């Protein structure tokens, strides 16, 4: 099911119209005018003029003197994880010459200031239903909660403010085009411990083979985070701080890996789905979730992950826009930021790069990223597969998780990659991420069908 993308700046008609009372007045004015003509009286004429002029002058006044209203929307927090709630607050302030900031901050309305405006808030259907509020002008916020079910970037609003004239005969809709962004980061899943290094290595790899032993020297600790393995708990430090403390990574004992999330639209065929305002597919969403989970899992286990997209750019940290960051490495300090940054991941349409100018190759060469590579992509074409093979020539090992969309046929690219020595895991969007993770080393075909119950996806 496709739907048109929500435009970034939805404009709303700003027009005045008469209320029921206004129309009644106008009709009564016409009737009275007819009566005045028939009866031959100037007092009835005066009555009809009063009835008719009131709505007309009111609409003239509405047109000449715009209501001084400023609508401010804020989201707290501005970035949430899927399934968590975010509070949206609407505040209205008079747009007056003198700063009314002080007045806006006071909570509670005084008896003088019982003015309010009617606000119709447009809410993205993925976040909830459209809401109608009466927001007091004193600055007291009126809020609602959204609980996004899908990662992405959402634009809250726009809102339309309905104002009425003092006599209740004309109403006008003013649009408040200001929109507020809510970023929703993907939810990470717990992945199975693979014990000793599960990323395939061949000889010559400087990475260690055996599990690292905790070293007593120069250990920095940090607070325990949910998901950290218990063997990394530093008990002495925990006793001193009174809460669980975990050893930070020892750079000497870290392994390294490269994680590439393909964000080229042509590599992800499938039905268009919208992650808020970002173009995506269901398969890509699976891929983003998998990327987030793998990133989180590896960085907790003394692995530095070099996270890139298929153009060699670093995945964005936090809510910064994806920049051409020098440092693509992600350690456990920065893992959370990168997971949050995945809220912005979107499919971009671009052509296949030439082998000569492939930015991915350039990046690999420049930073000597020869570590084991994990690629997460969709149904690749043969040409794309060959490109990756070329780009990853320097890597000691290559694995790919290919998320296929229906029809679930084994693509040619899978064969190409396998013959080049990659391990290929074919999954569908309903496949358990953990199952795919455990199959990385050996490769597998885990094309789970959609579950019997409609509408659910893993």
């Amino acid at each position: 099911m496709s739907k048109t993308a929500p435009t970034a700046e939805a404009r709303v008609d700003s027009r005045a119209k008469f209320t029921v009372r206004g129309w009644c007045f106008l009709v009564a004015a016409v009737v009275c005018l007819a009566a005045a003509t028939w009866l031959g009286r100037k007092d009835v004429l005066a009555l009809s003029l009063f009835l008719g002029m009131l709505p007309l002058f009111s609409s003239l006044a509405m047109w000449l003197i715009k209501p001084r209203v400023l609508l401010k929307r804020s989201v707290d927090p501005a970035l949430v994880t899927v399934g968590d709630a975010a509070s949206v607050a609407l505040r209205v302030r008079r747009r007056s010459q003198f700063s009314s900031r002080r007045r806006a901050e006071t909570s509670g309305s005084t008896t003088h200031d019982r003015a309010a405006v009617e606000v119709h808030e447009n809410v993205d259907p993925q976040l909830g239903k459209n809401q109608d509020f009466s927001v007091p002008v004193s600055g007291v916020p009126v809020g609602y909660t959204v609980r996004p079910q899908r990662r992405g970037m959402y634009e809250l609003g726009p809102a339309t403010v309905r104002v009425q004239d003092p006599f209740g005969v004309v109403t006008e809709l003013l649009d408040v085009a200001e929109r507020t962004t809510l970023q929703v980061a993907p939810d990470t899943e717990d992945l199975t411990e693979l014990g000793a290094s599960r990323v395939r290595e061949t000889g010559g790899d400087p990475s260690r083979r055996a599990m690292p032993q905790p070293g007593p020297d120069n250990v920095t600790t940090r607070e325990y985070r949910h998901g950290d393995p218990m063997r990394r708990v530093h008990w002495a430090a925990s006793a001193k701080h009174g809460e669980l403390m975990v050893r930070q990574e020892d750079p000497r004992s870290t392994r390294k890996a490269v994680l590439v999330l393909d964000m080229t639209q042509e590599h992800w065929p499938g039905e268009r789905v919208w992650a808020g305002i970002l173009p995506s597919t269901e398969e890509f969403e699976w891929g983003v979730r998998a990327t987030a989970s793998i990133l989180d899992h590896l960085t907790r286990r003394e692995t530095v992950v070099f996270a890139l997209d298929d153009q060699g750019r670093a995945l964005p940290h936090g809510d910064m826009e994806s920049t051409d960051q020098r440092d693509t490495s992600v350690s456990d300090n920065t893992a959370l930021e990168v997971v949050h940054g995945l809220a912005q991941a979107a499919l971009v349409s671009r052509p296949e790069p030439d082998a000569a100018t492939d930015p991915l190759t350039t990046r690999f060469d420049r930073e000597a990223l020869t570590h084991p590579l994990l690629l997460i992509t969709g149904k690749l074409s043969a040409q794309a597969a060959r490109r990756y093979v070329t780009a990853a020539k320097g890597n000691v090992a290559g694995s790919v998780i290919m998320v296929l969309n229906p029809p679930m046929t084994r693509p040619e690219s899978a064969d190409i990659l396998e013959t080049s020595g990659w391990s290929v895991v074919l999954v569908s969007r309903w496949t358990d991420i953990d199952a795919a993770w455990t199959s990385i080393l050996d490769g597998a075909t885990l094309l789970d069908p959609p579950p019997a119950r409609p509408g659910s996806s893993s």
Partner: protein
Amino acid sequence: MAIIPLHVLLLASIALGCVGMAGALAGFWWVLPVAVTVVIVLLVTAAARWLRLPSAVVTVLGLAALILALTVMHVSDHALLGFIPTPDTFTAAGQLWSESGSFVSRQSAPYGQNPGLALLLSALVGLVAVFMETALLGLRMAGLACVGILALLVVPALTLPGSVSMWGLGAAIIAALALLAGSRLWGATRQQRIAPTPGGLPRALLVIAGVLAVTLLVPTVMPGFFSGAFPQGSSFNSERAAGVGPLRAVGQDLRESERVQRFSYTTSDGQPKYMRLMTLSDFSQSEFFPQTDNLEEGLDGIADSETNPVSRENPVTSKVTFEDYNEHWLPAPYAPTEFSGIGNEGWSWNPRDLSVYSAASDMSGGTFTVTSSAPQATPEAMRSAASSGANDELADYMRLPNEMPESISSAARQLTDGAGNDYDRALALQNGLRHNFQYDVNAPLAQGYDAGGMDSMEQFMETRTGYAGHFAPAMALMAREVGIPARVAVGYLPRHRLGIRRAASASRWAPVTLTRGPNSTSRASVGAIRAHPRHSHHPGVRPRVRQRARSGRLRPAR
């Protein structure tokens, strides 16, 4: 919903609505009873609303409070313990009601003090208060509450020829707008949680100014809207509204396209007569009305030559049969000396001008006979008569009102420049009006100076266009200015064909009095201009100098 501010708002709107109603009432005698009634009603309803009683109960309590207030203030003698209504109370109230009805039909608007009218007004305004309170706080429909203000304006609309005054209209508009805005401000609206939007005050002021300007100014400049099915100055149960004076009534009759037969008469000498109804001598009011106090009861005094000292030479008998007749005054040729066929009950007459008045007005179908005797005087006699301007007994007919426009006095002096005696002066005034002025019965109404009172005279002198209702007082005032006692007579013109007197031939003319000397036994008075021809196909003034003489001394009226 804020109850106290809304009730204060109701009180203020009713007060503003009463400004318009005040135009139909003379003086402030009505303010206290009406105010007390309204305050009591609103206090009771406010308390009931504050106690959160159901809306229907509040309305019933308001009506009960109204009845209580009316009882205490107007008929407390007939109530138990002074405030509990009993059946006796209602009969007493009914009597007051009918008394007010007769008062209203006898008097002309603006109405003076009358206990029955006070009860009526208090009841009306009290009912309006209950209605508006129910509409505003019970039904939460402010637009409906504004209809209550309209009800208050109906009183001047149906009684005054000018309907609601500017002040009344402006006050009513402000009251209606206050109701509409205040209901939204204090929560008496059907939609939930609607409050005025910020920045409403400048917009409200703009709307108020605009609506007031258009509603008050446009009707005065817009042409038309003065004749139709029920024009201003009409009334439901009588021919005209109570505030319409005789001169204005002439205009209404002349503009009437339908011809109604009022009465028919035959005379013993076969000549048609001027059938005079009443005279106007007090020009100090804004609307000229005949004098209805200090009248002699019964008609015997007319036949008595002691009390009615006019000469009885050459009597003529006229027999009058009413067809569709609704005036208070009897039509009779001047000067009547005897009436028969109508008895004595309910009639009174004015010794000063021999007009006959009845409080009851419906004489349709009746018939009577009047013997009259016309004064005889020749122009030579008129010329040599001494001026009677200094005569104390005719002082009433010399009085000039303060509001008389300068143009009348200067025109009078200009026209009579060079005339040597009162008769020639009167003739000069008459010719001046005849030659220099135009006749038009519609233009004055359309341009806003319809005849009826002093207000129309200034514009009449300026535009030099008018009809009988303008010419006659102009003549009378100019005559008084140059020292001739004068008054305006109102009646029906003679027609060539005897018998039928149509409404369209109403006209007014101004008899001018000349006397022959302070102690002379005969006085001559000159009837002057007939300012209006029989019907509009003959425009222009047809003057006629008519002479009357009155013998005997004029006795001061008792």
